Structure formats: structure tokens, C-alpha cells
């Protein structure tokens, strides 16, 4: 195996990014473009009774104001390949479904003019009293029809009997607040029509789905729509589906006959493209005295909107992580006067936080080390009903090597037992797991020029994860070319199809496509060479020829050689290969997470002081970018567990902290050194991707509970309502 794949190559687009040369969507300059800005509803439910746009229309620079009275009609997209998950489009009628819903779209010559005009729109409403708190509406919970992740109520074995057989039972409830993605780059759309054909520059994790969705909404053939997204400043699921503002911007550009550009304000992102909903979960777990699980009942209740009830918190951790014969996993919904939730990295983190916290609670009930409890219930095979094989799973190795790196065997298991002066120290652990695969993959095209250089194209995305870099590595290795002679292009829906860059599906899907196409091109190169009488390798059996760094060798006599450049030049035309999309086989990335916290018992302040993760991600394409994914997950886990929450005013139904000043993501000072280790063994289930699996969403699924469990170990207080802020530590202490 050549060393290109697996080497810790620095991002090939890193320089462009840090110098500002990388063209993000909002950087796109289109001649003659107008600028849009949204005016949003200030009430959470009801209907518009009057809307006065006269001042806005007269404001300097304003070209047009669209409301439900004059907005072009749009089709609600729902067809094959689309990704519009709402059932309504705003500005089509007077109905208001949540605070922050668009009620007017201002178009002006400059963004500042459009923004100012938005403040001049006067709206009157017939408003109804909103309901936005999950706790106040739990009695309305229901199990929605099967959705993106299949049935929402799954039973295995006999959970009631399993609980009855148990020696030890726990019955615990946890809550998590509303969370927002807060990608650094706000969503942006620039729509350009030319002779009935539409080009949209979009902050998209799924350019192909965006293309299909736009085509249906605007009633144009998909072939007449092109979507471009060269760089993405984070998406985290918010930019996976297509949202109303994108469709509306394209429709208005058509109506006005001029390009229109919309960049959402930070506040607007809080109601424009989904969130992780508020949740409540109850876990009942039964176990034998030796730790063997006899039953798990896991009921999760999530907020949904009044108009949609898709659920995104998957129940896979509970179904797949441990060998438990009796199981019931139920996902319930409660409709509230809030925006529609969306998928959010990592979709299963709510369930896994609950499960892994509950297991920690069980470990104390049993007086058993939490790693030992997990090993007692280890499963090498997928215990889920459909039994889809995992591929490889090296989780035991992760527990062992992670524990060694962390120093877990020095832990005194008693709560409040480890101290540094007055400061309490806590160590916690949890398992991380993420299903990666079982989804449509990608196609790829490669063209090798007479200069011996390859261009590889896939309509995929670099959502900040390093796709440009790792796919260049795969292409270079599969082709036998020097990395400098490979150019990987993405972000244009005219390239071969790829699935949405979500669910950690890009590496296994696009990696497999790039490898296939490049391997085919390499084979073609060799065939051309050995059949070309002008080549020194003429007549040699093709399987005796190899390509390294742009040179073809006879493996029996390496002095006999040719160059890719010469071969293609003599051939007279570029050498091409294309691969059709292939399905990504199911995969399961797992790992062990460890966290250390220090807690000031007087002030209740929690600081995370160490984080270790050890993961099985299949083959590692690039140790540096993979490690960055791990660090990202660990950092987000700190926010999820200790500080992040979107607050909604109960009476107004309005988000009160829609900005990075009020919504507290961790800052550098919150984050200690993060250690990430990897098993790095190829998964035999996906040979096309060289054994690499999706990984990015894995670390967060374990690190949140590891931190919470460490807080318990430090303080003896189990904070079951996130985030764990200092007031809760103090209140828990007072209750004792």
C-alpha cells in the first residue's frame, strides 16, 4: 500500500481558507445582483391580519417587497430525490406557524438597504397563545408514523418479563434543551436565471437534492437547474435539507429578472433551518447482579412543529450497542408552536447520552466498573431486529487502549473520592457509536490529460471535514500519480451524483467512487500502454504493470518503464473513466470516550481538564483530518453537556438568545488538550473505500455522557437536565 492514503497530509485547501482566497457561497459576486433580507414574524401562531409595506417600499435602494399577497406561487417539493422536509412554504398565505417565520422578503440594491427596509415593515396579527414547553405538553405525546429512520416503536423480546427477571432495576429520566447548529458560515443563496435556466450558489450539504428540490418547487426541468457549493463553513445538518428561504430567493430572482442574493443574519438562522428539539427521555433498565442486561425500555419524547412531525434522534444506540434480549425503544413527538426541528450532528447523541448515562447509574447500583459493565454486555454482532451485519467492530480494543491512555485503572470509583486540595476531580467514560453507511453512495469521473495530470469530479461537498484533501489522496493512490498531479473537484451538481454529505457518509461513499473510477482509469492506462507498439511496455501482460508516481513499470524488470504523460500523449486523447453510484454497505464506527473534570464544590464550577477518545473508524485516510473530526466532536460534547441551550420565552414563543453572545458554545479556555487514538484497521465490508468508514459524528455520541459521568464521580450529584450549569450543581448539593 502506498503511503499517500493514511498520511497526515495538511489540508490542501488550508492556505486558501486562511488567506481568504477560498470562495464561500456568500463570497460569490454576481454582476447586477440584488440583495434580499427577511422580515420575520414576532408572534408564534395565528394569522396575519394586515401588512403595511409602504415605508419599506419607499426606503432608499428598495426594489421590491414580497409578502404573501404578491409572492409568486411555489410547489411544496416532495418528490423523489428532493429534500424539503416541511409541508408548508411561508409567504404563500397568511398563516403563522412559529415566531421567526418569514412574513416579508425585502429586495434592495445593497444588503444594508434591504436590512433596514425589513425593520420598516409593519404587520398586525391575530395571534393565538403559543405553547412551546415540552414539559407542559407531555400528555399530548404520540408516536408518529415511520419516518426517516423507520418505525418509531420497536420491541425485541419481552421487555416486561426482562424487567421482572432483573436483580437490579433503574428508572431514570433525562432532559435536553433545544440546540442550534451555529455553523460559523450563515446560510446563503444566490440565484441567477439565464434564459429559463437557473444557477444557484447555495450553502448546501446536498447540492443534488437541492437541485431536485428547486426544480420541483419552481416547476422547471431538473436539467435546467445547477447548484454550486465549493466550500462550506460548517453545516452540521442545518444545510442538509432545503429550506424555504432558498426556494423563495430563486422564485423572486425569476420574478424580478435579476440575480438575488440572500445571506441570513445570525438571528435568522435560529428559525430558518431547524434545530435539535427539546427532548425528554425515560430509561428503565434491568440487570442481573453480574451486570447482564435483562431489559431496556427507552422512551424519548421530542418537540416537533405544528406542520411536520419528522424525528431525527435515532434510537440506534439502544438497539445496537449492547446484547440485550428484551428491548422497547419508542420515539414520541409533541407538536408545539416552534419551528420544525432538523437533523443535527450527531443525530443519535440525545439517545446515546441517555443510554450511556443510565448505564453509568446502573454501574453504581451494581458496584461494578462501568467498562466492565459494558464488556459484560458486549456484542460482536448487530443485535438489532434486521440483523444487518456490522462489518468489523474493534470496540474491545478501544476500551482497552483508551483506558490505558487515560490511566483509568488509577480511578477510585467512589464519588467525591478524588481531590486536589478543595477541588473535586471526576473521571467518567462512555461508549461512542455511529452507524455509517447503508445509504446511496456516489459516482465519480476522472480525466487524465496529456500532461499526465488527473482531474477527478464528484458532486459532493467539503463541509469543513477535509473532503478535498482525503479524496485527492485516494485518487492519487488509486491512479498511481503524484499527489501534486491530482486535482479533486466538488460542489457542482453537473458532476457525477453524490449523496448528501451527512450521516458521516462522504468518506465511505465518495471514497469508494473515487477509488473505483481511478482504478478503472489506471486499468485503461495500462491496457493502452501494453497494446501500444510505441511503448517500452508493449506486449507485457497487463497484470505485470504497475503505476507509481506517474511512471508505469514492468514489475519483473523495473528498468522497463513508460510514463503516464507519454502514454496519454501518444494516445491522442485524454483517458477517462466514470463510475455509477454504488450503495454504501452498512458500517458501525465505535469507540471509548474518557473525560476528567474538576469541580469547585463551593461555586459549582465545572471545568473539563482532560478528554481521551479511542475509536475504530475502519481505515484512516488521513490521521490529521480524522483527529480534527474527533476534536470537533469532543469540543461540541463540552458545549452540549455544560453550556449550550436555546432559550424560548414561554409566553411569547420566541427564542431569546439567537446569537453567539447568548448561545454559549465553548471557547478555547473551556477546552483542554484532547487526545484521539485510532485502531486503523480496514473494514472488510467496504473494500471499494479501501476499508474506510464514516466517522465524523461518532466521538460526540460518547463524550457527552463521559463528561456528565465524570461530574457525577466528582460530586456525587447526578444532573439529569442538561446543560450542567453551576447553579444545578449547587442546588443538587443543597437538596442533599
Amino acid at each position: 500500500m502506498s503511503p499517500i492514503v493514511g498520511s497526515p497530509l495538511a489540508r490542501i485547501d488550508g492556505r486558501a481558507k486562511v488567506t481568504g482566497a477560498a470562495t464561500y457561497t456568500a463570497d460569490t459576486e454576481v454582476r447586477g445582483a440584488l440583495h434580499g433580507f427577511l422580515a420575520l414574524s414576532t408572534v408564534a401562531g395565528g394569522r396575519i391580519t394586515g401588512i403595511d409595506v409602504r415605508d419599506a417600499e419607499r426606503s432608499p435602494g428598495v426594489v421590491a417587497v414580497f409578502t404573501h399577497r404578491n409572492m409568486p406561487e411555489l410547489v411544496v417539493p416532495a418528490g423523489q430525490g428532493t429534500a424539503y422536509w416541511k409541508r408548508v412554504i411561508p409567504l404563500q398565505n397568511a398563516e403563522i406557524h412559529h415566531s421567526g417565520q418569514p412574513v416579508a422578503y425585502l429586495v434592495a440594491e445593497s444588503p444594508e438597504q434591504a436590512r433596514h427596509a425589513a425593520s420598516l415593515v409593519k404587520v398586525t396579527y391575530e395571534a393565538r397563545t403559543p405553547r412551546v414547553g415540552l414539559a407542559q405538553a407531555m400528555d399530548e405525546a404520540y408516536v408518529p408514523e415511520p419516518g426517516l429512520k423507520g418505525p418509531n416503536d420497536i420491541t425485541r423480546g419481552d421487555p416486561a418479563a426482562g424487567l421482572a427477571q432483573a436483580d437490579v432495576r433503574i428508572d431514570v429520566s433525562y432532559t435536553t434543551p433545544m440546540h442550534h447548529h451555529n455553523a460559523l458560515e450563515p446560510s446563503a443563496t444566490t440565484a441567477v436565471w439565464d434564459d429559463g435556466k437557473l444557477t444557484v450558489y447555495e450553502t448546501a450539504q446536498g447540492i443534488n437534492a437541492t437541485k431536485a428540490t428547486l426544480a420541483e418547487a419552481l416547476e422547471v426541468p431538473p436539467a435546467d437547474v445547477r447548484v454550486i457549493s465549493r466550500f462550506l463553513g460548517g453545516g452540521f445538518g442545518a444545510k442538509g435539507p432545503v429550506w424555504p428561504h432558498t426556494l423563495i430567493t430563486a422564485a423572486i430572482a425569476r420574478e424580478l429578472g435579476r440575480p438575488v442574493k440572500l445571506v441570513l443574519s445570525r438571528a435568522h438562522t435560529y428559525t430558518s433551518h431547524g434545530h435539535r428539539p427539546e427532548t425528554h427521555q425515560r430509561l428503565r433498565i434491568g440487570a442481573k447482579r453480574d451486570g447482564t442486561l435483562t431489559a431496556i425500555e427507552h422512551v424519548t419524547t421530542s418537540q416537533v412543529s405544528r406542520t411536520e412531525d419528522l424525528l431525527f434522534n435515532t434510537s440506534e444506540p439502544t438497539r445496537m450497542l449492547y446484547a440485550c434480549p428484551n428491548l422497547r425503544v419508542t420515539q414520541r413527538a409533541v407538536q408545539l408552536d416552534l419551528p420544525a426541528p432538523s437533523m443535527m450532528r450527531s443525530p443519535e447523541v440525545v439517545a446515546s447520552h441517555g443510554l450511556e448515562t443510565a448505564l453509568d447509574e446502573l454501574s453504581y447500583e451494581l458496584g461494578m466498573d462501568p467498562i466492565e459493565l459494558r464488556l459484560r454486555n458486549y456484542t460482536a454482532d448487530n443485535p438489532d431486529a434486521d440483523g444487518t451485519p456490522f462489518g468489523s467492530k474493534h470496540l474491545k480494543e478501544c476500551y482497552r487502549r483508551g483506558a490505558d491512555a487515560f490511566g483509568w485503572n488509577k480511578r477510585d470509583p467512589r464519588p467525591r473520592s478524588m481531590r486536589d486540595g478543595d477541588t473535586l476531580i471526576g473521571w467518567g467514560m462512555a461508549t461512542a457509536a455511529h452507524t455509517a453507511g447503508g445509504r446511496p453512495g456516489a459516482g465519480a469521473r476522472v480525466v487524465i490529460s496529456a500532461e499526465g495530470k488527473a482531474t477527478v469530479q464528484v458532486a459532493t461537498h467539503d463541509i469543513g471535514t477535509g473532503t478535498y484533501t482525503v479524496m485527492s489522496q485516494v485518487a492519487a493512490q488509486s491512479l498511481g500519480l503524484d499527489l501534486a498531479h491530482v486535482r479533486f473537484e466538488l460542489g457542482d451538481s453537473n458532476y457525477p451524483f453524490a449523496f448528501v454529505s451527512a450521516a458521516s457518509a462522504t468518506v465511505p461513499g465518495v471514497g469508494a467512487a473515487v477509488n473505483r473510477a481511478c482504478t478503472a482509469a489506471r486499468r485503461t492506462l495500462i491496457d493502452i500502454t501494453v497494446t501500444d507498439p510505441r511503448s517500452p511496455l508493449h506486449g507485457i501482460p497487463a497484470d505485470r504493470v504497475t503505476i507509481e508516481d506517474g511512471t508505469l513499470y514492468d514489475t519483473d524488470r523495473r528498468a522497463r518503464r513508460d510514463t503516464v504523460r507519454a502514454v496519454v500523449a501518444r494516445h491522442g486523447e485524454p483517458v477517462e473513466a466514470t463510475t455509477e453510484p454504488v450503495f454504501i454497505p452498512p458500517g458501525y464506527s465505535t469507540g471509548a470516550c474518557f473525560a476528567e473534570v474538576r469541580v469547585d464544590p463551593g461555586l459549582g464550577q465545572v471545568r473539563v481538564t482532560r478528554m481521551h477518545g479511542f475509536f475504530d473508524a475502519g481505515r484512516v485516510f488521513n490521521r490529521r483530518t480524522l483527529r480534527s473530526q474527533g476534536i470537533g466532536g469532543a469540543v461540541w460534547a463540552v458545549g452540549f453537556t455544560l453550556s449550550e441551550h436555546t432559550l424560548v420565552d414561554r409566553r411569547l414563543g420566541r427564542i431569546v438568545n439567537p446569537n453567539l453572545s447568548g448561545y454559549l458554545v465553548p471557547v478555547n479556555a473551556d477546552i483542554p488538550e484532547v487526545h484521539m487514538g485510532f485502531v486503523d484497521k480496514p473494514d472488510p465490508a467496504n473494500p471499494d473505500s479501501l476499508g474506510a468508514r464514516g466517522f465524523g459524528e461518532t466521538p460526540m455520541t460518547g463524550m457527552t455522557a463521559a463528561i456528565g459521568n465524570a461530574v457525577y464521580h466528582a460530586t456525587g450529584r447526578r444532573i439529569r437536565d442538561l446543560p450542567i450549569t453551576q447553579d444545578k450543581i449547587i442546588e443538587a448539593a443543597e437538596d442533599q
Partner: protein
Amino acid sequence: MKLFDYTRVSRASDAVGLVAGRPGGAFIGGGTELTNLMKDGVLAPDLVVDVSRLDLSDIRVSRGRLHIGATARMGDVADHPVVRERFPVVSEALLASASPQVRNRATIGGNLMQRTRCWYYRDPGSACNKREPGSGCPALEGQNRWHAIHGGSDHCIAVHPSDLAVSLTALDATVAVLGPDGRRSVPLGDFYRLPGSTPHRDNALRHGELITGVEVPQSPLAAGSRYLKLRDRASFEFAVVSVAAALTRERGQVGDVRLAFGGIAPRPWRSPEAEDALRGRRLTRTTIAAAGRALVEGARPREHNAFKVELVQRALADVLQDLGGLK
């Protein structure tokens, strides 16, 4: 944002004249606060007068007083050796504020003129008596985790966000002001107003008056001062509660003492009651607890901020134990 005129002046009196002559005029220093409020549509001045280049950035001690010019940058003041040695509470409060990037830009005058972080104030889509007198206060029954337990009214329970102001309040600083009618000095204790029924008036400044500097008396008290800030993340966040404490000790007893608190009231909250509970007494866990109880006497917590009553006492105890060598 609305279109506005911008001008930069080199003399303070010119700045004052320009703003005083325009009802919609405003001063801008580092710009880390006013521009946010303008972008969010909270404030819409039609004239912005840039005072950041005025020759008011001195930091010096003379005649027993520390003079800090209004345009001195937060970071420069925090790092100044005299401030660090003789007025540690001021340096600590500044270093606990914002981020290094903001501190390199924001001015002392601008810091004192910060508006509340109350989210209802910052959201023109919500009612707010401070932003729009008479429109109502959603915080009273709404998301009030960050709001006041002391000094609020039925019209407003927003808290003042400046850490610097809390530290200066503890040290009996005065604010030097230049206005259309000349110069005046305002003790910091009189500078910030409680909301009462006029929460839209934050402070004692009249339109067109400009802060030119701050004066802090040098004293053994100032030299023995500390600042503790508790917040929901390690940096770049406003106080949930904060404490500025300064005290002298005589024969094992507390001599003089000043205590001011942030995050609990619409202005930096001086607690003479807590000070009285300590003055002339030994610093023990008992006297410290008594001071804490005196501090929260009469506190009026709301639905989501009752924890502040306990937390601010613990914060006070932490600082006093530290100053008293009880840790």
C-alpha cells in the same frame, strides 16, 4: 441598519458640540458595542462621532489618584503595571471581560456606557421598557436567569454588564464628564440609575455629555482588592454573578471594606449592609456568612434566577476567604 453620518474629531469639545447639537447623535469609541446595537436595530443614531482618537488615553497616578483616560483601551489598562500592583481589582475585572480581541479595541469610556445584555432589550421584535418606554417587560415573567435580584422594578429587571464598573464602584471612583456646559465629576455610585419607572435612562449623563476619564483614589484598600467573576463558560461571557472586594486589616480585624457586585442588579451593586457586617470584625466563616446574609436581605429573585441568591453569597465567601487567608 439606517444610513448615518460619521465624523471623527480630534478635540473633545468638538465631539460634545456635534452630539449635543443633534438629538440623534452618538459617540463611538472602540465600536465593539454601538455597532452591534445598530446592526440589531436597537439603536439608530443619525450621527456617529468617533472619539477614539481623542488625546484621552493616559493612564497615570498623580496626587494620590489613578487617572484613566476615556479612550484608553481595556487591554492597556488591564496590563498597566500600576493598575496591576495598586488596583488589582480593576485589572482583574478587565481581564475577566470580553476577549483579548475586544479588549484591544474597546475603550474605558465605552465600557462604562455598555447597554444591558438583556435579550429582550436586544431584540426589537420583543417589548422592552428600556428600549421602548411603556411597551412592557417580558423578562418579569419570562427567561430571567440572567436578571436582577436587587434593585429591579416592575418596569425592568435588566442587569448592567460591565465588570469594570463593578470594580470601580468598589473603589469609590469618579467619572469625569465634559458637556455643553463644561466639566463635572460624577461619583460612580451616582452614575448609574436604578430603573424605577424610567428604565430607558441608564445613567446620569445628559445628551451630549462625554466621559473623558475615570479617577480612582489610591489607598491600601485598593491595593488589597480582588475580583471574582462566575459565568457559564470559562471566558468571553458576562457574569452570572461577580464580586469586587477590597479590604484592609488591622490587628486581625477588618479595617475598611468595600463590596460591590455584578450580575445581580441594574447597576453595580454596592452593599453597605454586607460591609457593615464585616467592618471591625475578624474574618471568619461565621462573619463571612453573616455578610452574605446581609447582602441578600431583601433580594427579590424571579422564576429562573433564585440560584443567584445562594451563588452570590458563595462567591462573596470565596473572595473573602481568599483575602483573609482562610483557603
